[in-house]
């Protein structure tokens, strides 16, 4: 904890969990989309998010984050209009997601190039988040460290290739947490790698060039 955890953050109100945390969940999707063009989103709200989203602007906050705005951006207030102007379709659904944290959102995004994906996460208080699923695979990260997500094929040697690259080419890089999940043997898999400090420029393109790696994205400390 430091002094700005107490005096701060600067944020758009009214609620750190239902507004600021919601923006940050949206921003994870923004990183997953990674500058590709978004066509529409289906956002499922569960628990307390579903019950009180309207008065807290949770819907605007999630959309604002998806479009890349920050938890301190004044645009959050007009996020619904901004999405319309940008031709981004959106629909909000309400459904209790079994076993999920009370403040959970599931965001299904559809891209103009035909791609799509799903992120599920919760706002766990004080603006902090926990991402629990990406594309149906379990992950667990909170955005407090820089997090590298490596989407790849479940083949022998991929983890070794990624960690060797990180060690030999970027010796100062230290992994603080590592997690792997896969859909099925030989199918799609995700490495969740949290690192200390800021990952160096040039790391991601090199990871992407490793055989059987489909994509690598960086979710910077939010």
């Amino acid at each position, binding site marked *: *904890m*430091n*002094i*700005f*955890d*107490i*005096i*701060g*953050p*600067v*944020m*758009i*109100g*009214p*609620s*750190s969990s239902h*507004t*600021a945390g919601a923006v940050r969940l949206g921003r994870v999707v923004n990183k997953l989309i990674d500058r590709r063009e978004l066509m529409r989103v289906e956002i499922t*709200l569960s628990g*307390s998010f*579903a*019950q*009180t989203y*309207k*008065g*807290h*602007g949770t819907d*605007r906050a999630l959309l604002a984050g998806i479009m890349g705005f920050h938890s*301190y951006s*004044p645009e*959050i*207030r007009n996020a619904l209009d901004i999405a319309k102007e940008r031709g981004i379709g959106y629909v909000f659904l*309400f*459904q209790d997601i079994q076993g999920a944290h009370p403040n959970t959102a599931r965001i299904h995004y559809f891209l103009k190039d035909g791609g799509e994906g799903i992120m599920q996460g919760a706002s766990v*208080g*004080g*603006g902090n988040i926990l991402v629990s699923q990406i594309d149906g695979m379990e992950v667990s990260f909170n955005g407090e460290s820089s997090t590298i997500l490596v989407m790849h094929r479940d083949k022998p040697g991929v983890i070794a290739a990624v960690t060797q690259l990180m060690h030999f080419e970027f010796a100062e890089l230290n992994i603080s947490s590592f997690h792997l999940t896969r859909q099925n043997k030989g199918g799609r898999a995700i490495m969740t790698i949290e690192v200390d400090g800021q990952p160096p420029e040039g790391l991601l393109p090199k990871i992407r060039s490793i055989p059987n790696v489909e994509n690598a994205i960086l979710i910077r400390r939010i």
Partner: protein
Amino acid sequence: MLHYDSIAGLVREAEQKGRRISELVLKDQAEVLETTELALYEKMETDFLVMTESVQTGLDKNQRSMSGLTGGEGYRMNRYAEKGGGLCGELLGRAIARALAAAGCNASMGRIVAAPTAGSCGILPGCLVSLREDRGFAERDIVMSMFTAGAFGMVIAGRASIAGAQGGCQAECGSAAAMAAAALVELMGGTPRQCADACAIAISNQMGLVCDPVAGLVEIPCIQRNVSGLVIAFSSADLALAGIGSQIPADECLDAMRQVGDAMSPSLRETARGGLAATPTGRRLQEQIFGTQPSDR
């Protein structure tokens, strides 16, 4: 390196070195965050400017919350305070208006500084912007006092809580008032020990306050509780400066606050199931805003 596990420790350190708590905290945090004191000061200065803006925004006549439940309180109180000061006098009356304004800015999706939380974001601005604008305190002194407020907040967060869902409103508006009281004492030239006394008095005065937001929104009673927090911050600072200390040391007050928070029923910890939220009118307002959906879909 400073430790933020007790108020007594901060006071001892400041007394030994013959410095203000804020000076020690600025130096320490610059080391912890691996940056310069100047960069850290400037970041805090930005926070103060955002606080000042949030007051300005919230004083607008047409300020309305997202739900429509509240709005315009800062404007009305400011008008009233300017016409002779009311019962509280002009300084306190206008400070109350500013606390309402910043909290109203939050409720209308304006930009605020969580201090320590969004729900209690009116108390520090109400105190500090008032000393800057109505008492002519130098901005540098005001910004420095925020390091003292933040340091007290860190101790409170560690020993008790700053989350309504964990410790009730005493953890949010109570903590903000205690932080503000310590900052006010330092600004008025009080000693580190008097800062601790003001903190202890503010915490004692809000011990047991529950978090019971109507319809789960950060509006009723949160906006007006920012006012009571502010008034307690002012009165606690004045008591300490007058040499009326707290018999119970600040750290023991915080430990008690934690125990009281733990003993609170979950219905009184930000779930909107108890207190004012559960009154017939509270329930009616909830239905008025949210209807029976979407939770029943």
